């Protein structure tokens, strides 16, 4: 057991995966000598060598596309996309190649690769550095998507993603990189594709993931002061989504609020709302409510707090839910 920040837990997870399997290698812009713009890969090039930590030329399609070839060759490449907003030059490779190569070959070729994408906002940066594009990948079959919210998950999910024979995208909650937590290096938290009830409650359920999980927890605590018992689920996996856990909770509480940083319209909240409503229709006391960003491009830093849902917006949604 050690206390690590989310960032350092990822570093440790990557290091362990590289230690245990010589085929694991990292590719990305500035991940080597610099250790990544967030220092998440710090020390790994020195430790594992330049042939396993590649400071690549600048080209996201190049990073992801060569990783496809490396994966087919027997490597376990881990790509870093420097920021969420720079994923799109690789979108074709991810959507038409990474996701589809296995199905194209009827299972004969696997693409065991990992794509790490630091995501989300409220970091006071400039355009393209604060986005939450997870819904744009979840819709595509062939991919898996994980997003840790704490150091323990961060440490293990990297390793689980790398060990997985399918391509996995890990959306890393960059504004939580400095959040500290206990990491148990002995016992893995189990199935990474299962959601976790991280706070039990009886009156309503809040589903969140990645950077929004601490906000959801804070909302549950604040609601408690008002005498409301709110259950919080950390979704952890965005593709597939563990609908069983969410549905079971909502069957008990009768109310669901989903909070994410991505714009509400077309976001994953819609998928969750639709499926849970279908599966728990007779248990719902109120419609599933979603709290997300507005249908606007991510705004300049000075006003980003108005854009990304905060504690108050989650509480307000809970109030609306209770009002039904």
């Amino acid at each position, binding site marked *: 057991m050690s206390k690590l920040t989310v960032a350092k837990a990822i570093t440790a997870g990557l290091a362990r995966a590289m230690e245990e399997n*010589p085929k694991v290698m990292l590719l990305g812009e500035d991940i080597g000598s610099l250790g990544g713009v967030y220092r998440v890969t710090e020390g790994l090039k020195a430790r594992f060598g330049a042939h396993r930590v590649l400071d690549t030329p600048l080209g996201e399609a190049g990073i992801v*596309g060569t990783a496809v070839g490396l994966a087919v060759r027997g490597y376990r490449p881990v790509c870093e996309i420097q920021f969420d907003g720079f994923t799109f030059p690789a979108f074709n490779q991810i959507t038409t190649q990474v996701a589809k190569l296995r199905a194209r070959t009827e299972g004969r070729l696997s693409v065991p690769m990992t794509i790490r994408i630091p995501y989300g906002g409220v970091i006071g940066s400039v355009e393209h550095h604060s986005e939450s594009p997870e819904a744009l990948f979840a819709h595509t079959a062939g991919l898996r998507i994980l997003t840790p919210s704490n150091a323990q998950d961060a440490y293990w999910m990297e390793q689980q993603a790398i060990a997985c024979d399918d391509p996995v995208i890990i959306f890393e909650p960059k504004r939580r990189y400095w959040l500290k937590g206990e990491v148990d290096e002995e016992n893995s938290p189990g199935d990474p594709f299962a959601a976790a009830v991280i706070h039990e409650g009886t009156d309503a359920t809040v589903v969140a993931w990645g950077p929004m999980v601490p906000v959801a927890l804070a909302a549950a605590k604040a609601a408690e002061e008002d005498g409301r018992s709110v259950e919080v689920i950390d979704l952890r996996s965005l593709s*597939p989504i563990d609908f069983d856990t969410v549905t079971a909770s909502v069957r008990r509480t009768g109310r669901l609020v989903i909070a994410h940083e991505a714009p509400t319209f077309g976001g994953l909240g819609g998928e969750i709302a639709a499926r849970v409503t279908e599966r728990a229709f007779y248990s719902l006391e109120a419609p599933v409510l979603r709290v997300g960003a507005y249908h606007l491009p991510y705004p300049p830093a000075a006003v980003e707090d108005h854009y990304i849902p905060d504690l108050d917006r989650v509480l307000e949604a809970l109030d609306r839910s209770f009002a039904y």
Partner: protein
Amino acid sequence: MESRSHAGAVPSTLTRHQLLDEQGVVAEDPLLSPYAADITVEELQHLYRSMTLARRVDEEGTSLQRQGQLVLWVPLRGQEAAQVGSVWPTHPSDRIYPSYREHAVAFERGVPPAELMRYFRGLSAGGWDPEQYNLNPYTVVLGSQTLHAVGYAMGASLDRKAAEDSGSPLDGDPEAVIAYFGDGASTEGEVHEAMVFAASYDAPVLFFIQNNQWAISVPFATQSRVPLATRAAGYGFEGLRVDGNDILGVVAATRYALEKLRRGEGPVLIEAETYRMGAHTTADDPTKYREREEEDQWGHLDPIERLRVHLRTVHCVDQAFFDTVAAENDAVARQMRADVLAMSPPEFVDRFDGVYAEPHSLVAAERAEYLDYQAGFVAQDDSQDSDSEGVGA
């Protein structure tokens, strides 16, 4: 905005290599001649066989498609020398990344014609086993496979280096990789990144462009002011421009490139200038965009005819050989047709197994739903004899 004459164009100074000229006569080429010097007449006959087989199967493909037995066919007529000549010098251990028109490449790697037809009959998006033939499936998104080829080649280098470092160097020639693509695909951004990465990592990859002058209806002049081989220098590696209808030139250029790759000197680009003599696909109508004269002109440059004349006149191969080959090819085509017609459609339910390697809750749930739904129909059919039996079949 037509894009033909460019006042400011800087012309390319690249040599166009050729060994077997339009009359079937071998010419001298300082760079390439040594690489074709040892080709035996038996080998030439093999190359002839491969080229004509590809053409014969190609014809059968078009005919099958016309008869509604294929969803699409992509003719390769005219490109037999470029394809056979570039793949023949490879080792089985070399990995090949085709685009979607490289049927002759696939056959030369051992893929049975009928197996390839699974793709064009709409039964499979892959077709053959990539590991068995060391041949990636066709890639339709233009240029995307070039990056995979580079990554695979990087992996091959890494493997070799790891083996050396561990004190047990690998036997045999270092592996090489070929990435095939067209003049049209060459302008896609991913191809650029492939060249950048290959140059940066000295990846043992041969970028083999079949410049068949057309990208569907887009003429080469729209794509580039200069031969595509010129581009290689911009990345700091070698680019060769070769007559792509000259089987000897293509073999020699490929051998030259593969040697270089195997020496660890990084990527090479070959542009084989050839011509798509047929339609882009069976859905295409080339009369809409190109002149008969152009087709005729290239008709005189037919790669097979050129080799035939060469075999006849220089090596005195007699008619019996050509007749035998034609008969053999006919037999292969007939067998292929029979095999294709006998193919049974895949089971849709199997699609649920191909997409993920590991268990997946959503796919499992949808698979169960699908089976339930289908079972519902069977039940309904049984009881009501409804006409919905054909659903989705």
